[in-house]
C-alpha cells in the first residue's frame, strides 16, 4: 500500500508517486527539524494526529473524527483550522502600492481600504511564484499572506525586489519595508455557523463585514485582525493573532459547535471549492491565464502602458491576447478517483491532452472530482475525455468549478 509507506518512518525518504500530496509535503525535512506553530501543544492536547507539512508539524485530523465527518462538519456547521504556518507580512511605505503592483497584476490602487484580494506573485516569464491574499489597510500599508511551502522562495523574492525597488528612482517618494509576522497565529473559522459563533464573542456587527472585507475586531479583550473569507468556499473568517495569545484565542474559538479541523479536510474542502493548492495546481511554469486566474489581473492592467507594467506582464499579455495553450479545468471522473499526475486523453483512446493536478472522491458530492490542465480546445464544459487511473481509461467530463457552490456572506 503505497500511501502507507510514507507513514512508516523508515520509508519517509522514499516518496511514492500517486500518493496524495498532503502526506508527502515536507518529507525532505526529518521529523526532528519540523517547525511548530504556536498551537502545537494545543493540537496535541486535543488529540491531533500531527504530520509533516511544508516544514511544519501540523494536525492532519483530531481524535477519531474521520476526514469525511470533519469535512461535512465544516459544510454544515463550523470548523477551526490552524493556518499559522502560513507567512504573514506587513508591507509599508509611501510607494508600497506601486511596489506591490509591480510584483502582482492586481489593481491595488483602486482597492478600497480594509479589503482583500486574491493575487499572484509572478516571475519574469509570467509564471506564478505563489498565490497570495493581499489586504489593503491604506495606500501605505498592506497585509500579505503567502504559502508556507513557498516561504523561502517568496521571502528571497521580496527581499531582492525590495532592494531593487528602494535603490531605484521609483522609490523616490519613500522606501518600502517588509515586516514578517513570524510566530503570529492565524486561525480560519469556516462554515455556515461560524458567523453566529463569532458574533457571540464580539460587539462588532459582523453583518457589516462582507466577503473580502477585514477589520480589527474586539474579541473578548483582544483586538484582532479579522478577514472574511477562507479556503473552503463557506462563509468564514481568518483571524490573525499576536504570538502570546494564539493558544488562548484558539481555545475561545473551538467550543461547540465548532470542531477543530485538520489538513485532510482542508484539502478536500478547497478542492470542492475549486481553489488552487500551490505546488499541485500552480507552479512557476504556469501563468495566471492558464490557471483560470485571469480575474485576478486588474482590468486596467491588461494593456501595455504605465498601468500594465508588472513583472511578467509581457508573457501574461501574450496569453491574454492569443489565448493560453492549456487551461486549468474541473473534471468529474467515473469509476476511480483520478489523483495528481493522472494522464488525460482525448476520447476513444485519443492523444494525450493533459494531466490531473489534484483529485479526490468528493465527500459532499460523492463523485470523483479533479482539477487538471488540458490543451485549449478540450477545455469547454461538457467535453468528454478519458483519464488513466491504474492503466485503465476512465471517462470524465469537464465540469465548471467550484464543484460545490460557494456560500460567502455578501450582505
Amino acid at each position, binding site marked *: *500500500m503505497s*500511501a502507507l509507506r510514507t*507513514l512508516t518512518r523508515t520509508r519517509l525518504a522514499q516518496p511514492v508517486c500517486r500518493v*496524495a500530496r498532503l*502526506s508527502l509535503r515536507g518529507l525532505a525535512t526529518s521529523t526532528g527539524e519540523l517547525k511548530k506553530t504556536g498551537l502545537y501543544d494545543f493540537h496535541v492536547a486535543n488529540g491531533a494526529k500531527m504530520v509533516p507539512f511544508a516544514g511544519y508539524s501540523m494536525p492532519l485530523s483530531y481524535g477519531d473524527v474521520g476526514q*469525511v465527518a470533519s469535512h461535512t462538519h465544516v459544510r454544515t456547521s463550523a470548523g477551526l483550522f490552524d493556518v499559522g504556518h502560513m507567512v504573514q507580512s506587513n508591507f509599508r511605505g509611501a510607494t508600497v502600492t506601486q511596489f506591490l503592483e509591480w510584483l502582482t497584476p492586481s489593481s491595488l490602487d483602486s482597492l478600497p481600504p480594509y479589503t482583500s484580494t486574491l493575487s499572484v506573485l509572478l516571475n519574469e516569464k509570467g509564471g506564478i511564484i505563489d498565490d497570495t491574499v493581499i489586504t489593503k489597510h491604506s495606500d501605505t500599508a498592506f497585509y500579505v499572506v503567502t504559502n508556507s511551502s513557498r516561504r523561502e522562495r517568496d521571502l528571497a523574492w521580496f527581499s531582492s525586489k525590495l532592494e531593487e525597488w528602494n535603490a531605484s528612482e521609483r522609490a523616490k517618494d519613500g522606501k518600502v519595508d517588509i515586516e514578517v509576522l513570524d510566530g503570529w497565529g492565524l486561525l480560519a473559522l469556516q462554515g455556515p455557523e461560524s458567523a453566529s459563533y463569532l458574533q457571540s464573542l464580539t460587539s462588532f456587527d459582523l453583518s457589516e463585514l462582507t466577503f473580502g472585507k477585514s477589520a480589527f475586531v474586539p474579541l473578548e479583550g483582544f483586538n484582532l485582525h479579522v478577514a472574511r473569507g477562507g479556503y473552503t468556499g463557506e462563509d468564514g473568517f481568518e483571524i490573525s493573532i499576536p504570538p502570546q495569545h494564539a493558544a488562548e484565542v484558539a481555545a475561545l474559538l473551538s467550543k461547540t459547535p465548532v470542531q477543530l479541523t485538520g489538513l485532510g479536510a482542508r484539502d478536500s474542502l478547497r478542492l470542492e471549492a475549486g481553489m488552487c493548492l500551490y505546488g499541485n495546481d500552480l507552479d512557476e511554469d504556469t501563468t495566471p491565464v492558464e490557471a483560470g486566474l485571469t480575474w485576478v489581473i486588474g482590468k486596467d492592467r491588461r494593456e501595455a502602458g504605465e498601468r500594465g507594467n508588472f513583472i511578467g506582464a509581457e508573457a501574461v499579455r501574450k496569453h491574454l491576447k492569443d489565448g493560453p495553450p492549456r487551461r486549468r479545468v474541473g473534471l468529474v471522473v467515473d469509476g476511480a478517483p483520478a489523483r495528481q499526475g493522472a494522464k488525460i486523453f482525448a476520447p476513444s483512446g485519443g492523444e494525450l491532452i493533459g494531466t490531473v493536478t489534484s483529485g479526490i472522491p468528493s465527500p459532499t458530492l460523492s463523485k470523483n472530482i479533479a482539477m487538471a490542465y488540458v490543451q485549449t480546445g478540450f477545455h469547454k464544459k461538457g467535453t468528454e475525455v478519458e483519464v488513466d487511473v491504474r492503466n485503465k481509461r476512465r471517462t470524465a467530463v469537464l465540469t465548471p468549478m467550484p464543484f460545490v457552490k460557494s456560500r460567502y456572506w455578501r450582505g
Partner: protein
Amino acid sequence: MISALRQASRSYAAIPRRVAAAAGSPRLTPQLRTLITKKYTEEHETVTYDDATGLGIVTITEHAQSSLGDVVFVELPQLDSKVEKGDQIGAVESVKAASDIYAPVSGIIREINEQLNDQPGLLNKAPETKGWLCKIEMTKPEEMEELMTEAAYHDLHES
C-alpha cells in the same frame, strides 16, 4: 520459533496445535489437521493461508485502515487472473490518498469480496475479517515463509 514455523508451513500434519498458537494464528476451522497461518507484508497487507484449501485470504491491516482514514472506494482484483507476488492487483482509495494493493503471494485470484463495491467502509470497520479483499489460490505456498509474523509487522511500524 522461526524454524518451527518453517516446518509448520511444510508439513502440517505433524505439527502440534501449540505451534499454530505460538504463531498467533487464528484457527478458522475446527479441523485439527488444517494449519492456518496468518502473515503480514511491509505493504500493510495480511495473508491468511489455509493449507487445506490452498487459498490465501488477502486483507489490509488494522494499522493500514486507521492510517488511511475513511475508505470510499476499493478497486478489486480481476477474478481468475494470474498474479505474481508484488504485482499491483487493486487499490484502496480514501479521500486523502490512493493506495495500491500488491499481491502478497503468487497465484490465481479465485474470489473477490464484492461486498466492498457497495460497502467500502467495511475496510475501516473490519479490515482483517469482513473487509477482506480477495482469495488467492497460492501457486507458491512457500512464499508465506518470506512474509512477516504479526510481531515483526508491529515492530516495523511502531519502531
